[in-house]
């Protein structure tokens, strides 16, 4: 039998100074909705007492950039409060491990964000890790990557595992540009990532959730090894069960972490799992060669893409609804013809978006051109594109034909109005 713990917890709610507590009757007064920063539950477990928490990244010291967040409802004293954030908790040392908590955090985010996912409690997650009742030794003996994959699958997701490639002869990682480009593309798509890592400083394995990133403030510092915008990322935002959420993970090639997390950097990552929704068959590792190969070989001239020395590429999954919402919110930059094309485009629910920019445009959050791909296309589909456009012209493709041919359409956009970058799957931390 374990330690005797009491059944009740306490919950701490965080407000700014403008909210006032009234004693009789008990109530909160002031501009509460704007000034509520979330809560943390404390468990009576003597150690690792930080339980289910939902904190706004706005109150975390030094955090900036973009974070995956959902709007959570909180019922308190007859009020329904809301807070944007990502779930977190410390591992309940008696019954949970870091991998278990990471699965829980991702699935709790999904149940808040997407109606089709039901809420799964801590114990439910444990039960999903095996095809039989695992009893008390799971997950206290640890959860491996394949058990985490099984949990996501059993919870109704379609997990995709990406493993970093190690060259045993040279004793070094190979293909890192592709590994990290995939990682960022799924993160920019709004999918939190389950990351497995081996800390060199601690010489032990660990699991975290990646839930955000920040761009380099000084773009001249970033390297040009790849035209993918991974080279523009300065830090990743982690939900690590050993600390409060939204911790900075250094993105560096050196050995010494300089950020808040001292035990590991992105160099220690060895695999990640992205729990995808149904109907996404075209993976990031197919978008990478398409964005470089077909687009640069066939559509370079028509789209007037940037020269190789200044080219930057990013790609991410989104929904056609999000694209249309972005168009509606930024209608003046699209113009009537392009807006109509995107509103009438017959696509699947999920699409890949590729955006091209020069260094200069990247600094201004502008783009040269954009392509919209069918995320439900086969990986072997040579032409999965619905549409591409720059500031002058769009090319649309009829994917119902045997060999989709492009139809060029002049856009007649407003002059001197640049196209802006889309960042709709993640929320800025302000």
């Amino acid at each position, binding site marked *: 039998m374990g330690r005797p*713990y*009491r*059944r*009740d*917890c*306490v*919950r*701490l*709610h*965080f*407000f*700014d*100074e*403008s*909210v006032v*507590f009234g*004693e*009789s009757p*008990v109530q*909160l007064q002031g501009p509460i909705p704007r000034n509520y*920063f979330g809560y*943390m*539950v*404390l*468990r*009576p*477990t*003597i*150690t690792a*007492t*930080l*339980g*289910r928490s939902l*904190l706004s990244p*706005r*109150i*975390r*010291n030094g955090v900036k950039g973009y974070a995956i967040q959902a709007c959570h409802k909180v019922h*308190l*004293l007859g009020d329904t409060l809301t807070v944007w954030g990502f779930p977190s*908790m410390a591992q*309940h040392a008696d*019954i*949970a491990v870091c991998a278990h908590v990471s699965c*829980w955090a991702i699935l709790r985010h999904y149940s808040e964000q997407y109606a089709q996912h039901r809420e799964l*409690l*801590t*114990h*439910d997650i*444990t039960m999903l890790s095996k095809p039989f009742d695992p009893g008390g030794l799971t997950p206290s003996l640890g959860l491996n990557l394949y058990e985490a994959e099984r949990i996501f699958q059993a919870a109704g997701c379609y997990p995709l595992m990406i493993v970093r490639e190690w060259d045993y002869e040279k004793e070094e990682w190979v293909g890192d540009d592709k590994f990290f480009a995939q990682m960022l593309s799924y993160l920019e798509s709004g999918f939190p990532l389950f990351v497995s890592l081996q800390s060199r400083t601690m010489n032990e394995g660990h699991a975290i959730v990646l839930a955000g990133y920040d761009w380099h403030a000084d773009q001249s510092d970033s390297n040009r090894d790849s035209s993918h915008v991974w080279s523009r990322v300065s830090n990743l935002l982690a939900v690590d069960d050993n*600390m*409060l959420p939204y911790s900075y993970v250094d993105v560096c090639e050196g050995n010494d972490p300089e950020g808040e997390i001292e035990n590991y950097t992105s160099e220690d990552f060895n695999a990640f799992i992205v729990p995808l929704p149904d109907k996404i068959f075209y993976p990031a590792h197919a978008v990478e060669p398409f964005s470089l190969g077909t687009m640069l070989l066939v559509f370079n001239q028509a789209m007037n893409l940037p020269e190789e020395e200044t080219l930057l590429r990013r790609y991410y999954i989104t929904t056609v609804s999000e694209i249309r919402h972005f168009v509606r919110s930024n209608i003046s930059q699209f113009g009537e013809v392009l807006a109509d094309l995107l509103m009438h485009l017959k696509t699947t629910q999920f699409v890949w978006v590729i955006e091209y920019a020069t260094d200069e445009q990247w600094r201004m959050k502008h783009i040269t051109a954009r392509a919209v791909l069918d995320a439900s296309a086969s990986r072997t589909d040579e032409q999965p594109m619905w549409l591409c456009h720059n500031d002058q012209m769009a090319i649309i493709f009829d994917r119902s034909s045997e060999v989709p041919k492009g139809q060029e359409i002049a856009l007649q956009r407003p002059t001197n109005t640049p196209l802006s970058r889309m960042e709709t799957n993640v929320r800025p931390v302000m």
Partner: protein
Amino acid sequence: MVSKNSQFVATGGYSWLKIESPDDYDRLVEILDASFAPNVIANQLKNNISKVGAVLVEHDYIDKDYSSTY
């Protein structure tokens, strides 16, 4: 009402803690039972969050995730 001063109000199942400096989180030790490790939590809050002007402590809270493992 259990106690009241300018920094701390306790009424029934709720305690209200004003935060005017990071050290105010240390008062969690006075409010919470030791089984919640309030000193550890206070240290985490002092060193990692800002912009907070007050904390409402909701006592006797039944948490579904904790209960699921009980």
